């Protein structure tokens, strides 16, 4: 029965899907504020914002991939590779613009490579990006010999450490990326195409959508995001570290999923991803404030992903029930 479905849908699932994640965030925020006085201090809030920048930027890339029904496992290694090469360039040439272009360029090449491999040979994105993850890691380790490049200069440091007024500069970068991602997803034909490709590839193809280009675009964009995140991170550390940011893509994917984007593709908005990223940010920050050790933090985050995925499945079940 068609009608019953519609009316029956005003249930937990649909409401959670729309607003649940905001409520969860608010609830956590309130609890943490009450629990620990220093949580809400100006310095800590700025800290949280600074901390979520890298993950949020990566999450924007992962979100495009996930909406298309793909995933990028190479993100953190591409980040390290691009970020370190960017640091290397600024040390070698002293030219900030060149450093940024190298970082972005390398990342974009990796993303485009992922995209080409996925669409041309029809290789599952999981495998393709797993392979390029190894390539990126091996390449930068070979290039650097495992060495870090430190003292990158004031101009480069400003990217990750600077402030405009009371607000950290990287927060502006994050905001800009979020805006661009929102624009792509909601206001461009290719954004529409991504939802269609992830929702039903065959139908998208039959509607004249260029499925290959759409997937390629998402993969290249994800690569670019890794590059931006890499530059920001290396700048914040004032050091190009080829072994940095291990498994950051998992945090980014977690943020996307907690935000309510379905792993099966075709759904999700960038607004939800911000909230997902902020939830992870405040949980991590709160655990730091409470002196919970890093290993235990991982346990908590792992459980969180499980809960998010279970909720996602429940929501979809309740939606497809008659």
């Amino acid at each position, binding site marked *: *029965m068609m009608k019953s479905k519609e009316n029956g*849908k005003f249930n937990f699932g649909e409401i959670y899907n729309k607003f649940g994640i905001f409520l969860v965030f608010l609830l956590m925020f309130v609890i943490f504020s009450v629990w620990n006085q220093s949580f809400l201090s100006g310095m800590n809030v700025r800290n949280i914002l600074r901390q979520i920048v890298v993950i949020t930027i990566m999450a924007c890339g992962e979100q495009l991939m996930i909406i298309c029904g793909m995933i990028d496992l190479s993100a953190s290694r591409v980040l390290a590779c691009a970020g370190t090469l960017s640091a290397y360039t600024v040390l070698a040439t002293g030219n900030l613009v060149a450093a940024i272009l190298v970082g972005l360029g390398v990342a974009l090449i990796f993303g485009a490579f992922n995209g080409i491999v996925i669409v041309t040979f029809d290789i599952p994105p999981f495998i393709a990006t797993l392979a390029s993850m190894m390539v990126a890691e091996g390449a930068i380790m070979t290039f650097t010999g495992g060495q870090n490049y430190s003292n990158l200069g004031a101009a480069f440091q400003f990217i990750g450490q600077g402030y405009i007024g009371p607000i950290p500069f990287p927060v502006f970068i994050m905001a800009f990326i979020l805006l661009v991602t929102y624009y792509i997803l909601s*206001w461009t*034909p290719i*954004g*529409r195409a991504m*939802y*269609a490709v992830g929702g039903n590839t065959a139908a998208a193809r*039959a*509607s004249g959508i260029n499925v290959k280009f759409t997937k390629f675009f998402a993969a290249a964009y994800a690569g670019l995001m890794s590059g931006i995140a890499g530059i920001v991170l290396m700048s914040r550390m004032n050091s190009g570290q080829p072994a940095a940011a291990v498994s950051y893509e998992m945090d980014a994917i977690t943020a996307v999923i907690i935000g309510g984007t379905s792993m099966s593709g075709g759904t999700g908005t960038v607004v939800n991803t911000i909230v997902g990223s902020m939830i992870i940010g405040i949980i991590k920050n709160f655990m730091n404030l409470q002196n919970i050790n890093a290993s235990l933090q991982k346990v908590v985050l792992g459980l969180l992903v499980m809960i998010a995925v279970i909720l996602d499945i429940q929501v979809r079940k309740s939606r497809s029930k008659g």
Partner: protein
Amino acid sequence: MEKKKKVLELKNISKSFPGVKALDEVSFSVEEGTVHVLVGENGAGKSTLIKIINGMYTADEGELYVFGKKVAMHSPRHMKELGIATIHQELNPVPDLTIAENIFLGRLPTRGPGIVAKKRMVEEAQKLVNDLGFSYDVKRVMRSLTVSDMQIIEIIKAISVNAKIIIMDEPTSSITEGEVAVLHEQIHRLKERGISIIYISHKLDELKQVGDQLTVLRDGKTISTHHIDELTTDEIITKMVGRKMDNVYPVKEAEIGEKLLEIKNLTQPNVFSNISFTLHRGEILGMSGLVGAGRTEVVRAIFGMDSYSSGEIIINGKSVEIKKVSDAIREGIIMLSEDRKLEGLVLIRSICENIGLPNLKRYRGFLLNKKREREDAQEMKEKLAIKTPTIGTEAQNLSGGNQQKVVIAKWLLQNPVVFIMDEPTRGIDVGAKYEIYKIMCDLAAQGAGVIMISSELPEIIGICDRTLVMAEGRITGEVTREDFSQERIMSFALGGKAVNDEK
């Protein structure tokens, strides 16, 4: 006729979902060894009724009796134990397993822990198949069977777990006429063994062949129950739609004009060969044939979904190369896919987005022109009378007929010159069918050409000006309206085979 035992009886069953009464005091019974046909438009409550019978739903009010005993506990499992089985419209066999393995799936006979007693399984399965009077080799792989055979295996599987009442939900919606005959013959055989069948179908002409009794549902109410011979097909339709339908097919007024599309020697090795035909403006051209004759493959090639190795596509006198869907769209050629869920719709997105999908170019700008997109979708919703609360509703929440209208809507916005429809009315009720035929006629009247693939001869005869007939990848015949007859078309459809046999 003697009074037969009632194996299933529903008394005043009601079921509501928030905001809608899906079933309103429905009473219905099935006699032993008979086929009881259930008809009604989409949304009339057939699916809800079935789900109550097989335990998926619990009725709000009313009583359900199986073999004279009142059923208190409603669960799919319990109903299965009582002997009720459902053969769904879409089958889910495991294609690479054998018939025997599919029959015993989930309860494979074992010897020792975790070791399948393969020999015993094959023997038992073969005995089961033979006892029921069928002649399948149970070692055959499921994939090698036709859809109707798979349905029969599904039925055998149901009987092997003691099913006495089998619900068949549109079993013939995706099989050919030949297969339908096979299925009906087997149903007869099952009846003789005392098995009762609840049969749901939108194909009214087959009801008389297979059914004993018929119940019409409309708006969640049982309208009436009859012996199958008491009503004519027209009377059944009238009861289903609640008004008199003067005609199942609209009158086509369009004049046939100049040549529009010309296909010359289109060939794809091992799929189809030397396909040549012409389509004129204002014409509705049918494509008949058995499933697997290559009709879908030909139109998919014309639409750029599949490739062709040689041949020529000429539109408006200009030879065009079509390599991908967007090439076809640019030439004004569009196609409604055979499977609307697989290729027509992105089910989890809204109606509005689905309608907008092939038309995104129209809304291009710095910001996607969503206002225009919504206006277009709204206009189409009204024009095609798509029944939905809003255009923001997800496509998956619509009934089959309305989903099909959404797919048509998204293509109409392209102002197609050649509209190819592959089985456009499959699984759709009479009312919606009429509306789809009407759209085809309107398109023809506007000077477009329509190609309709259909496995249902009555609709080919009812609506087409001319029909091509395909068999085994070749065009074996062409029949014009004046010469239409089911026998003639059928003989061409089988023609390919006859020619081969002679060799």
